[in-house]
């Protein structure tokens, strides 16, 4: 065949709606529009729903306490629960997650204890958990850098015939960084078992998608790396779960990486110190609040008879318990040991650092004395 791509693209590519399995109103999408994907089983969806509700409650609590100044900063993922939880629910515990600052609720769902997640945002240390313990890398701040770590990790596993996969979250804004491109391309060439989940929440701080790229959709990037790309309704947990599951299976089968774009929306400010009134209409936010991913899944589960009052109560309790644990974790005075600053800069101890450590200790001792 000798057709050619030698014409301006808008002519070539069809309009595309993001894949969804459950519609806005909580109704199942007709089978022929599901593009071969199946709605996950009710038990699975109920588990996801539960995690989403818990996550929302936790996120709300953290946001509130951050406004009170109890945390140094917190980027909320409110409204993105379907993307966040749909994704990690599809992972096995031994798959590694490479999250960003935005993805605390995904990290929470992976089982990392609240106090360990808050360490970074409260500011007692940069990363609070042991990544090896939870198969979850530190939340990356330098944008897009984690994409490459995920590819390298996955490639190492592949070289060792270790049947795990990695998942990297990345935001729409961060896809503009060179590292995102390099990561997608390396993964394609090396057929790394990695799933890239782009959470297109349509803003990078104040910058809207339209100023970020002229791409119809970010899933289109996949074409340029010779790997599959999916454009998914990021507020439909069922679709996210189904597509990530398929991509992880593919990765584990040795068929390489996948890019999945989850189209969603950042309903909260970028972080507590942001002021969205400067760059977007409140009405747009309201429109998206109305597309709440938790409500959508809830309606579906209710209509399928999978969510009765006792389950609801149980989930509410779990959510409240999580919020309470969160508050308690924050009430614990952080254990701050300035001497630790010098402990792990290197594996191999350095005399010069030990001297600097000793000097600080002397200073603190003197200070303590002078205050007596």
């Amino acid at each position: 065949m000798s057709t050619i791509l030698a014409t301006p693209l808008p002519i070539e590519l069809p309009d595309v709606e993001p894949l969804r399995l459950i519609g806005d109103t909580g109704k199942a999408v007709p089978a022929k529009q599901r593009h071969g994907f199946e709605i996950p089983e009710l038990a699975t969806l109920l588990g996801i729903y539960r995690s989403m509700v818990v996550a929302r409650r936790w996120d709300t609590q953290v946001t509130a306490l951050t406004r009170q100044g109890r945390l140094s900063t917190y980027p909320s993922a409110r409204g993105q629960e379907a993307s966040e939880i749909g994704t990690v629910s599809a992972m096995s515990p031994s798959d590694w997650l490479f999250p960003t600052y935005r993805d605390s609720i995904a990290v929470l769902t992976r089982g990392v204890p609240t106090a360990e997640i808050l360490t970074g945002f409260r500011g007692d240390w940069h990363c609070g958990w042991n990544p090896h313990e939870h198969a979850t890398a530190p939340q990356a701040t330098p944008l897009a850098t984690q994409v490459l770590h995920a590819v390298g990790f996955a490639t190492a596993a592949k070289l060792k015939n270790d049947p795990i996969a990695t998942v990297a979250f990345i935001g729409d804004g961060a896809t503009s960084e060179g590292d995102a491109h390099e990561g997608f391309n390396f993964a394609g060439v090396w057929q790394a078992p990695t799933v890239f989940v782009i959470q297109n929440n349509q803003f990078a701080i104040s910058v809207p998608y339209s100023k970020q790229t002229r791409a119809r959709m970010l899933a289109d990037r996949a074409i340029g790396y010779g790997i599959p790309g999916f454009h998914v309704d990021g507020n439909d947990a069922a679709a996210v779960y189904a597509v990530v599951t398929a991509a992880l299976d593919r990765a584990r089968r040795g068929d390489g990486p996948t890019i999945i774009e989850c189209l969603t929306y950042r309903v909260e400010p970028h972080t507590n110190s942001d002021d969205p009134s400067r760059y977007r209409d409140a009405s747009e936010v309201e429109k998206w609040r109305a597309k709440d991913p938790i409500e959508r899944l809830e309606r579906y589960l209710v209509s399928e008879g999978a969510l009765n009052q006792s389950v609801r109560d149980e989930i509410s309790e779990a959510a409240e318990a999580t919020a309470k644990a969160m508050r308690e974790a924050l009430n614990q005075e952080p254990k701050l040991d300035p001497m630790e600053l010098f402990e792990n800069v290197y594996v191999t101890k350095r005399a010069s650092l030990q001297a600097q450590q000793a000097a600080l200790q002397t200073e603190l001792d003197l200070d303590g004395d002078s205050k007596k």
Partner: protein
Amino acid sequence: MNPQQSTKSKTQSEAKPLTMAAALNRAMRDALTENENVVIFGEDVGPLGGVFRITDGLNRDFGENRVWDSPLAESGIIGTAIGMAMYGLRPVVEMQFDAFSYPAFEQIVSHVAKAHNRTRGAVRLPMVIRIPTSGGIGGVEHHSDSSEAYWTHTPGLTVVTPSNPTDAYSMLLESIRSDDPIIFLEPKSHYWTKEPEATELEELPMNKARVVREGDDVTLISYGPTVALALKTAELGAAEGLSVEVIDLRSLSPFDDETVGASVRKTHRAAVLHEAAQFGGYGAEVAARVTEREFYHLASPILRITGADIPFPAPLLEKFYLPNPERILTALNSWNWED
């Protein structure tokens, strides 16, 4: 309109800004007004006015063709600014924090710094790279780096940093008017510090250091965020009978050997302050070059009172890392004052 015609002092006196943030904003506003080739772009510098609001209102008042949000990619920002400067524009770009300038390191070191030399002077790159620098605001990881040593070691770059609103205004305007590319480091912990009403600083070209307090016993060499620290130390020192001369370098590259040398020849002792790690930090250059030139005038070795050789700590621990007046005085007392 020839940009050189409007005098800095006039524009400035019209409305003396109170905070450094306001001063920087006014400098950009005046630059945009006086020269239609000035453009401003970067991450969030448009409608939001930057995460620190330093470009507040500029997009509204000058429009999308003069002040706009770019896609999120620092190498892209610097690389396209290079092309614009080649064309004849005067781009002023913002790196959101020091650590987020690192993706642009190659463009800065291999092109911004070298284009003029590479082309025997044929290609000029009049551009300003604004970087909110250093710690002191409890920023989470990657938000408190001090990157000056990387830039000052790179021939072809000019690196300046103001410590007060008056300098912030005049130095930024001078940087935008300069035909050389300038790294402009803004000490973010001082964005909201107000100029003391009483201060009437003299105008000074940005390549000159300023003696901000005179003293006889020791020269404290500071810049950007450590100038206020040095002044505070001098106050404390005075109470203990130590007469401290404080220098604000203002320009890190070039280095004002004259002003610093004259001070050290008077006091015979010096210490340099910065937040960055000590090893290979900017203070090493200061100590080395001042010692080379003034060795026989020095009664004791030049001290470096700096951050430790560790990554910048998490917010709640930064106070143990950042130099403080007590630490500085203790260090000064470590000298053999009998000599």
